[in-house]
């Protein structure tokens, strides 16, 4: 069953075209990884999906409803679309627990106690129950990002969009975040922009290679890494694979 459908999405910033007609679909609980050189619109695509930057043209559908329809209740639809940011964007004035529970309290109108209980479960799921009462400034980058994932998970989204979730982290902290993401595979749909090739290769159901505002090629990781149809894909994967631990892909 198609859960997310992105149809011919265009987006420009000023005169600069970023996305030039992007189309793809995602099934329920599928994991897709978007790769490609910087400046090709990968992050913009994610922001077009949850309408943080609405596309200029094209449509986005979630569960048979058009998000891009101006008449649709975008706030209601965003509840179903989690977003994990490159620079975490945790709420600085709230503890880890409250960061996770605030959406439940203020958007889903849950009772405070129930929301805290639920938030504690999500923090436990990402291995941070001990840090529940710490503020973002007291957490390491990897911990912050795991709180960010817990915050998205607590809303019980249909899909979580990850915008380079490990790019701002020290190498030794990346593993914890990737482990958490791996554990979510098959439980919630994930669309991940990342440069972690090993992760992409092991975890993704499908890899999307983007360049110049369009999807160049997409397919299962095995096919993409060993047998890409398009020369440019092979070149990119070869180069970036050498840089980002392709060998762990095994």
């Amino acid at each position, binding site marked *: 069953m198609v859960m997310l459908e992105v149809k011919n999405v265009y987006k420009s910033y000023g005169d600069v075209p970023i996305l030039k007609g992007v189309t793809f679909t995602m099934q329920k609980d599928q994991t897709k990884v978007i790769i490609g050189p910087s400046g090709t619109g990968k992050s913009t695509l994610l922001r077009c999906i949850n309408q943080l930057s609405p596309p200029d043209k094209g449509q986005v559908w979630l569960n048979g409803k058009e998000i891009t329809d101006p008449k649709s209740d975008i706030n209601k639809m965003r509840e179903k679309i989690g977003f994990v940011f490159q620079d975490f964007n945790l709420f600085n004035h709230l503890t880890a627990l409250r960061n996770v529970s*605030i959406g439940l309290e203020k958007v889903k109108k849950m009772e405070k106690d129930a929301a805290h209980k639920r938030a504690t479960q999500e923090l436990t799921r990402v291995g941070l129950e001990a840090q529940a009462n710490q503020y973002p400034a007291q957490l390491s980058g990897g911990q912050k990002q795991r709180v960010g994932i817990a915050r998205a998970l607590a809303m019980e989204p249909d899909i979580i969009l990850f915008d380079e979730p490990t790019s701002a982290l020290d190498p030794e902290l990346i593993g914890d975040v990737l482990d958490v993401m791996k554990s979510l595979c098959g439980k919630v749909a994930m669309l991940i922009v990342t440069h972690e090739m090993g992760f992409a290769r092991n975890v993704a159901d499908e890899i999307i290679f983007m360049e110049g505002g369009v999807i160049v090629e997409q397919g299962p990781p095995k096919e993409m890494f060993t047998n890409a149809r398009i020369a440019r894909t092979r070149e990119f994967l070869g180069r970036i694979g050498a840089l980002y631990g392709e060998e762990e892909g095994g």
Partner: protein
Amino acid sequence: MALDTLIDSLPSLLNGLGVTLLLTGFSIILGTILGVLLATGRSYASRPVAYLVFIYEKVLRGIPLLVLFFLIYFGLSQIGVNLDAFTAAVIGLGLRSSAYQAQIYRGAINSIPEGQIHAAYSLGMNKIKAIRHVIMPQMLRLSIPGWSNEFTILLKDTSLAFGIGVIELMRQGRYIQVRDPDLVLIVFLLIALIYFILVFSTNNILRYVEKKYQMVGYQVEAHR
């Protein structure tokens, strides 16, 4: 003899102090509520509203307080709006303070990373919820030092309400001076001391509040 007069006039000074505190209290409340609304309006409302706020701030920060008092107290009565002096003073002080406070809050809003509001939206919050639950709490915390400063300025500027006949601390001192001109130095030294103590103690209280509500990670460390 002079000392007796001074002691006799203490109750009237205390009365004046009470009025000064009431003036300060009412006008800081008015100024804070309006200031927060203005700052949020300027940062998040539509362009025309933001522009109106901009004009409001410019005008009110460009007029001397005493002129504002005269406009509100005497000027408005000419077009049929008769306010008592105390109310006129509260409005004048509150409006002017709101314009300065709006600047403080706007600075605080600008220092909150934009990603915070994006994160709020991505949880399904609408603009009002995002402002209320994410921006506002951070804005207020970041504004406490600036607000303390504005508070002390406002407290001292209540003395200008003497100009439109509000019987506050300053005017009580003036009454004593008129009755007994020899006391002028000692009375106004006493009044100066009262203002100083007020400012000093409220500053200390506010520093405590600032510490208590400071966001973890946003403390400013002294580097000596």
